[in-house]
């Protein structure tokens, strides 16, 4: 029975790590601009689809990956420059709708360029799964979890040790003050979107061998990422990771032990319950309202 549990746990961690990466993308942009970017899932799609199509054109996997990440980065910048920046003063809900419009637009283009089919990508290292304590684990799982961990470590380093990272943090805390000490907040915003796009596209690439990829894969994954980010507490990096993993594990456990029919309902039930007791998510700042 333990092997069963272990199997569910690994399944949950694999999906959860993906959710965590997407949630981190949400967090980065939220921190810099207080925008919830509903086009986050499209970065994932671009990552996966561009890699597949570049491989199709005969490029080796690493080159294709770099190309896809660059494309996503460009899109991140374009999204900030042409869609978010011009509407700076708009209401948060308006900004949400803008990002939804952007997501539909990107999807519409992707569908024209790459067609509507699903595409597969080979595992990075072989199709033979590994057995751990009676559970079977896809080798790609290690890539997903490993790369997620490396990215998280990189982000921690970036935000605590580099000048630019600190500038982003400062801007998220107080835009005016950041500007006063000479931080170019516009640049910072652009950087946040770029980073978020890079993160999203990497997530899209590493999960593509597990989930396949298509022009509309971003809708559901993006949504789950938002759920994970809110579960963990918007704006908290740690929260994004905890939220993502929790969501993944809850889904896998429910599917395994209770009812696969209500797997998603259970995940959504958990978030309502968490918010009921912790109105700012698991790790959200306990902010006291200033009046």
């Amino acid at each position: 029975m333990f092997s069963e549990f272990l199997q569910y746990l690994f399944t949950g961690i694999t999906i959860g790590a993906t959710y965590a990466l997407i949630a981190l993308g949400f967090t980065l942009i939220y921190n810099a601009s207080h925008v919830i970017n509903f086009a986050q899932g499209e970065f994932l799609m671009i990552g996966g689809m561009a890699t597949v199509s570049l491989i199709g054109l005969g490029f080796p996997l690493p080159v294709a990956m770099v190309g896809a990440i660059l494309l996503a980065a460009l899109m991140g910048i374009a999204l900030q420059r042409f869609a978010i920046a011009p509407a700076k003063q708009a209401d948060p809900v308006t900004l949400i709708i803008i990002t939804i419009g952007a997501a539909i637009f990107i999807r519409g283009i992707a569908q024209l360029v790459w067609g509507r089919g699903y595409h597969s990508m080979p595992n990075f290292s072989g199709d033979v799964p590994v057995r751990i304590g009676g559970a079977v684990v896809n080798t790609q799982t290690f890539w997903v979890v490993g790369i997620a961990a490396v990215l998280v470590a990189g982000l921690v380093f970036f935000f605590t040790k580099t000048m630019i990272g600190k500038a982003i943090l400062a801007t998220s805390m107080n835009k005016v003050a950041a500007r006063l000490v000479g931080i170019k907040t516009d640049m910072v915003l652009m950087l946040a979107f770029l980073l978020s796009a890079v993160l999203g596209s990497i997530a899209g690439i590493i999960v593509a061998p597990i989930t396949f990829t298509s022009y509309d894969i971003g809708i559901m994954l993006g949504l789950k990422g938002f759920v994970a980010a809110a579960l963990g507490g918007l704006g908290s990096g740690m929260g994004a990771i905890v939220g993502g993993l929790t969501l993944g594990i809850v889904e896998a456990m429910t599917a395994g032990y209770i009812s696969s029919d209500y797997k998603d309902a259970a995940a959504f039930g958990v978030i309502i319950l968490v918010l009921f007791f912790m109105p700012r998510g698991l790790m959200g700042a306990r902010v006291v309202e200033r009046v």
Partner: protein
Amino acid sequence: MSKKLLRRGGLLAATLAAGIFSGAQAADPIKIGSFLSVTGPASFLGDPELKTLRMYVDKINEEGGVLGRPLELVHYDDEGNASNARNYASRLVRADRVDIIVGGSTTGATMAAVPLIEQSRTPFISLAGAVVITDPVKPWVFKTPQSDRLAAERVMQDMQERGITKIGLISGTGGFGRSGREQTQQVAEAMGIQILEDVTYSPSDTDMTAQLTRIRNNQDIEAVFNFGFGQSPAIVTRNFAQLGIDRPFYQSHGVASNSFLDLAGSAAEGLRLPASPILVPDSLADDDPQKTIVQAYVDAYEARWNESVSTFGGYAYDGLMLAVAAIEEAGSTDREAVRQALENIQGHVGVTGIFNMSPNDHNGLAADSFRILEVVDGGWKLIE
């Protein structure tokens, strides 16, 4: 800026005039209406269906049309959304005044349009699978794919031949999977097959390992049957292989396309499914009545679109050909006459099967129109 906006508004108004306000015109061409899920979660159905319709409408027109009149295809994309389907059906019958409708990629889209189409008394050939579309029979509604019930029967017949009596069922929570699951449960009961595990996955799930683990750990299960469509069955297939479940594996006709093989890769090796002969034109016996017609469709489709065929495009081919046959038989586009002609079609050889319609059967296919295929060496093999 304001001028630009105005101009944009003008464009919009022009589109409106062209689109919605183009009322009935002189009925010179025969209007074939269609609403398909060309985008959205069911795009793998709608996309080949639309390509097929376009291709053959062009072809028929080049060859002089039907009853000396050209065909005109009026098509809308319902994005897999049932209420869109209903609205486009309304547009087709009320604004475009089409003579016949060939469309409805999914059961949900089809059923949403049915009440309206029935009331408007327009012949309608659906391309969706569930048995509810034609059972009970609705006077104006026909369909070309075999019902999911037939698929379940065919699969379980094959299981019985292999001596399998206890199975695990996994299905998608989308319309196709839900209906298929229901039919499978009923057929299983009738045929004395026990379903020991019954698990589901949502169409957007990216990993079904948890569900399959439940099946794997039930040692009594002798075979596994997956009823679903889209990319999910390919994920199920891969997870199935990864978990090393060493038992016979069946899929439904919902994955009968070569792109499924591309997605599932070597994990698909050895699995079986019920399908139209469209995937194995070469394996058909030379005297098989479907051989030439299947071969011709496959060649034409692959040459025109540069991609491999799927069963789904075949449904549209049959739908269009049945419509043409009925109009020719009726000698006009008079709706009641066309409806009656459709209802009385006998021995119409299509790519999906041989259609024998009757007032009690608006599908007209028998279970033997499904062939059991097995994946061998990365390709399909006909199991006789």
